[in-house]
């Protein structure tokens, strides 16, 4: 690392932030852009499991809330891809790489949503896991990203409440409805535990070293368990992991080691719904290519 890079590293480690036009080390720019791009991809792919249920929402209120939630996610994708574009990679290229499988998106969006129970569990727990990650980006050394994270976190606040409302209504309902929740939880627990990624020592995590994010993977997972296992248990739901417990002294959660092979396989494009969903994106994009041409021509 040369002196200029060293100075930059010390600057960001001291809490300094940079803007789009500032000089940054190549390594920083590359890692940063890849990280942010994956986030944008995840928001964009995240709408697909949920939008199937917009059509099937069982009350007008749920219909509106779910549509608004998915709309927010599209809005977040827009914010994020604009940041990536200002870092030098146009939106079209991002979509090319997403659809071809060259770039990635988060594991949870590669799985099917089978019931209305999934809709509740996703909004309650998957979004909660995501918000923990997102809060760790609020002080990102790259200021444009930190700024959009503020808007994103603020908008996500209603998503969790909506999720909790759906779940509580189901848990207070019929036996069948309670079963919907438990069954969905059983399926989503594995992906949830993998969501924050495998443990990486702080000094070996480039995201932490460059102050792109302020929390390590394991810490994020512990925070998730701290916040949400009690919420799960208090409703009489069970978590499908017999080893899950909180150490009385250290207050750290112990659990069955998540399946890191599954995580790797899924994010490299082998999830149960990966191909279908990328296909849908590709189709939607092809079908609307003429619209973009028409708008360009004027």
């Amino acid at each position, binding site marked *: 690392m040369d002196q200029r890079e060293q100075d930059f590293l010390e600057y960001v480690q001291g809490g300094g932030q940079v803007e789009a*036009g500032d000089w940054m080390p190549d390594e920083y720019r590359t890692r940063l852009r890849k990280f942010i791009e994956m986030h944008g991809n995840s928001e*964009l792919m995240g709408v697909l499991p949920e939008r199937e249920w917009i059509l099937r929402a069982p009350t007008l209120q749920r219909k509106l809330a779910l549509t608004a939630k998915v*709309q927010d996610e599209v*809005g977040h994708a*827009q*914010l994020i891809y*604009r940041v990536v*574009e*200002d870092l030098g990679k*146009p*939106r*079209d290229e991002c*979509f090319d790489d997403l659809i071809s499988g060259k770039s990635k998106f988060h594991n949870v969006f590669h799985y099917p949503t089978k019931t209305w129970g999934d809709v509740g569990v996703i909004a309650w727990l998957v979004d909660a896991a995501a918000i923990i990650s997102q809060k760790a980006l609020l002080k990102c050394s790259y200021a444009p990203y930190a*700024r*959009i994270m503020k*808007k994103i976190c603020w*908008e996500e606040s209603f998503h969790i409440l909506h999720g909790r409302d759906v779940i509580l209504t189901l848990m207070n309902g019929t036996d069948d409805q309670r079963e919907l929740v438990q069954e969905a939880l059983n399926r989503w627990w594995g992906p949830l535990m993998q969501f924050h990624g495998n443990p990486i020592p702080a000094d070996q995590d480039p995201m932490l070293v460059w102050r792109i994010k302020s929390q390590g993977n394991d810490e994020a997972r512990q925070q998730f368990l701290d916040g949400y296992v009690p919420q799960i248990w208090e409703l009489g739901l069970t978590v499908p992991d017999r080893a899950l417990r909180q150490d009385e002294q250290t207050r750290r959660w112990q659990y069955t080691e998540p399946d890191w092979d599954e995580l790797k396989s899924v994010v490299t494009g082998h999830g149960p719904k990966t191909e279908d969903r990328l296909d849908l994106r590709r189709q*939607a*994009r092809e079908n*609307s*290519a003429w619209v*973009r041409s028409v*708008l*360009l021509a*004027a």
Partner: protein
Amino acid sequence: MGALGPPRSLIYEVFRQERKGQAFQHAGSIEAADERFAESYAREQYGRRGESQALWVVARSSILQIDEFVDELNRNYHRVDGYPLKEKLKEARERAGTSRPAVADR
């Protein structure tokens, strides 16, 4: 979904006013084919929750950025740090035989 290509790509910067009396702050940017689309999109992206009192939507190409300022000769005469008064005040008090002010200093 794609960007409007580089040659005719129109990026609009959006500034929002949270409450009356507050300054407009930069909120983000959108891509749009023209002003009509920009207005529609800015309204939804930055105001669908009624979270903004008002928005300014400006083509990025209309914004003039200035980020280099020159002060080679340290012009401190029009800044507060150009007026270190502690020593002079100490000297003046000693001359007047007053070591402490009768009333608290401003």
